[in-house]
C-alpha cells in the first residue's frame, strides 16, 4: 500500500490541533503544512474576522471559510508563507471571511486588512487595517499596529511597540516597554505601567494615563487640542513637567512639591522622583490627580 505523506502530515497536524483546544467549530481546515519556528507570514483578509494564535509547534493550520465571492489562497514553503482571501473577480463588495490560523510562536507576521477585525495572541509583527478593529494580546518580540480609523486594543507584553490610528480608540495595556503610540482624534487610554520609554501623542484626542511610571522611565505625552489626564497611585514617584500653551493645568495631587511654576507650566516632584514625565499641550487641559 502506498502512503500519501502529505495527507498523513495533514492528518497529524489536524490531530495535533484538536489536542490544542481548537476544533471543527472553527470551521473546516483550509490549509496546513510544516512551518519552521521564526518563519515569516504574509496574511491578507479583506473583511470579516481574522484570528491568529501562536502555538508551540512547527506547523501552521488554518481553519474557517472565505467570504462570499472570495477564495482562500495558501502558498509558500516551510520558511515563509502567504495566505488569505481574495476576490474571485473584479472589485466587488468586501466579503466577510472567518479565518483562524495557528502559527509557530516565533513567527513574524505581516497582516493587512481593509475592514476585518484582527485578533492575535502571542504573535509578533506588523498589523494593518483600514477600518477594522485590531486586538492583540500575549507575549511578542515586537508589535507594530496601524489603522486609518479602526480601534486598537493592545494588551501585550513586548519590548517594542508602535501603534497609530486616526479616530479609533487606542487602548494600551499589558506590559510593553518601549512604546510610541498616537492617534489623530481618537482617545488614547494607557494603563500599562511597565513603559520605560514612552511617547503618547494625539492631535485632538484625549489622552488618559492611569498607572505609575517605572523607576528610570522617561515618558512624554503630547496633544494639540485634546486633554491629557494622568491618574496616579498614591505612592507614585516621578518628576513631572507639565506645559500647556493656552490650556489649563490642574494639579489634584496635594502632596506634590512644586519645583517651578509659571502661568503655563508646572514642575512637580512626587516621592523621590526617579522617572520623568513630560506633558505638553497647545490648548488642551492637563489634569493630574490621584486614583
Amino acid at each position, binding site marked *: 500500500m502506498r502512503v500519501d505523506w502529505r495527507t498523513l502530515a495533514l492528518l497529524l497536524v489536524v490531530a495535533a490541533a484538536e489536542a490544542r483546544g481548537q476544533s471543527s467549530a472553527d470551521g473546516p481546515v483550509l490549509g496546513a503544512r510544516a512551518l519552521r519556528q521564526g518563519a515569516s507570514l504574509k496574511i491578507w483578509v479583506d473583511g470579516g474576522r481574522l484570528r491568529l494564535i501562536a502555538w508551540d509547534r512547527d506547523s501552521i493550520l488554518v481553519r474557517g471559510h472565505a467570504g462570499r465571492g472570495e477564495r482562500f489562497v495558501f502558498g509558500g514553503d516551510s520558511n515563509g508563507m502567504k495566505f488569505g482571501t481574495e476576490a474571485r473577480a473584479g472589485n466587488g463588495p468586501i466579503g466577510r471571511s472567518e479565518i483562524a490560523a495557528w502559527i509557530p510562536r516565533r513567527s513574524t507576521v505581516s497582516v*493587512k486588512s*481593509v475592514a476585518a477585525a484582527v485578533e492575535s495572541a502571542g504573535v509578533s509583527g506588523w498589523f*494593518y487595517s*483600514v*477600518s477594522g478593529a485590531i486586538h492583540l494580546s500575549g507575549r511578542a518580540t515586537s508589535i507594530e499596529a*496601524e*489603522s*486609518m*480609523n479602526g480601534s486598537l486594543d493592545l494588551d501585550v507584553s513586548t519590548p517594542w511597540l508602535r501603534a*497609530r490610528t*486616526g*479616530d479609533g480608540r487606542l487602548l494600551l495595556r499589558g506590559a510593553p516597554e518601549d512604546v510610541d503610540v*498616537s492617534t*489623530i*482624534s481618537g482617545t488614547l487610554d494607557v494603563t500599562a505601567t511597565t513603559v520605560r520609554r514612552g511617547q503618547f*501623542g494625539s*492631535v*485632538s484626542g484625549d489622552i488618559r494615563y492611569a498607572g505609575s511610571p517605572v523607576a528610570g522611565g522617561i515618558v512624554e505625552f*503630547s496633544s*494639540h*487640542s485634546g486633554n491629557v489626564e494622568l491618574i496616579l497611585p498614591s505612592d507614585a514617584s516621578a518628576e513631572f*513637567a507639565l*506645559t*500647556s*500653551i493656552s490650556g489649563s493645568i490642574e494639579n489634584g495631587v496635594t502632596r506634590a512639591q512644586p519645583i517651578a511654576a*509659571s502661568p*503655563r*507650566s508646572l514642575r512637580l516632584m512626587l516621592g523621590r522622583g526617579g522617572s520623568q514625565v*513630560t506633558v*505638553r*499641550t*497647545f*490648548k488642551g487641559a492637563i489634569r493630574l490627580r490621584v486614583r
Partner: protein
Amino acid sequence: MTAPSQHLTEEERQTLADGTMDPARSGTAAAHTRVCVDCATDIARIRMLMARTRDASAPPEALDELWPAIRSRLDARKVVSIAAGVPDAAPVVPRRTRHAFRAGLLGAAAAAAAVVITFLPIRERNRAGDDAGGRQRQDKTPPFVAVVDSARSYEAEARSLLDRLELQRAVIRPEAARLLERDLRSVDVAIAELKDAIARDPNNPTLRQLLASSYRQKIDLLRRAGNAG
C-alpha cells in the same frame, strides 16, 4: 553623400523628409529615392509621421488636470522662505490646492523638513529640560541656521516618499482616501495654529516640540494611507 548604390544615411533621410537638406545635396538624394524603394518608403513614413505630429490635437484634459499639481510641486521646491533670524522658517507650501489629498502629500515635504528644523534643536534643549517660558530662554536657544542645510537633505528624501505616495494614489481605496482627507485637515489646522503661535513666540521650545509632533503625525498618516492600497 552616400554612393548611388548605397542607401541614404539616417541623417540624409531625416533632412530630406523635413526639407532641411542642403540644396546642393538634395538633388542627388532625391534621385536616389527614385531608384531605391527602401529609402523612398522610409522617407515617406517619416513625412507621414511628421504630418501626424503636426496635426495632433491638444493633450487630453487629464494632462491639463495634472499640470496644477506639477506646478504646485515645482513652486514648493523653488520657494524657500527662510528669513534670516527667523527660527521657524520652513519651505512654504501652498496653503491649499484644489485637491486636499494632493495638498497633503505636498505638505509632507515641508513636514519632514520642519520635523528636522524643529526637532533637532529641541532635542538639544530637551536635555536641559522642558520649559513653557520660551521667552526666558531666548539667549540659550541654539542658532536655527545650523540645521537648515540638514533640513534640505531630509526634505529631498521626503520628496521621494511623496512621489511614491502620489503614484499610489490611484489604488488607494475611496474610503481610505476620505479618512485621509479628514485627518489631514485636523493635522493641518493644528500645524497652522502652531505656526501662528511660533511666529509670535519664535523661541518657545514647547511650541516647537508640538509642531514637530504634529508634523510627525502628518507623515505617519500619509504613510498609513500609502498602505491602504
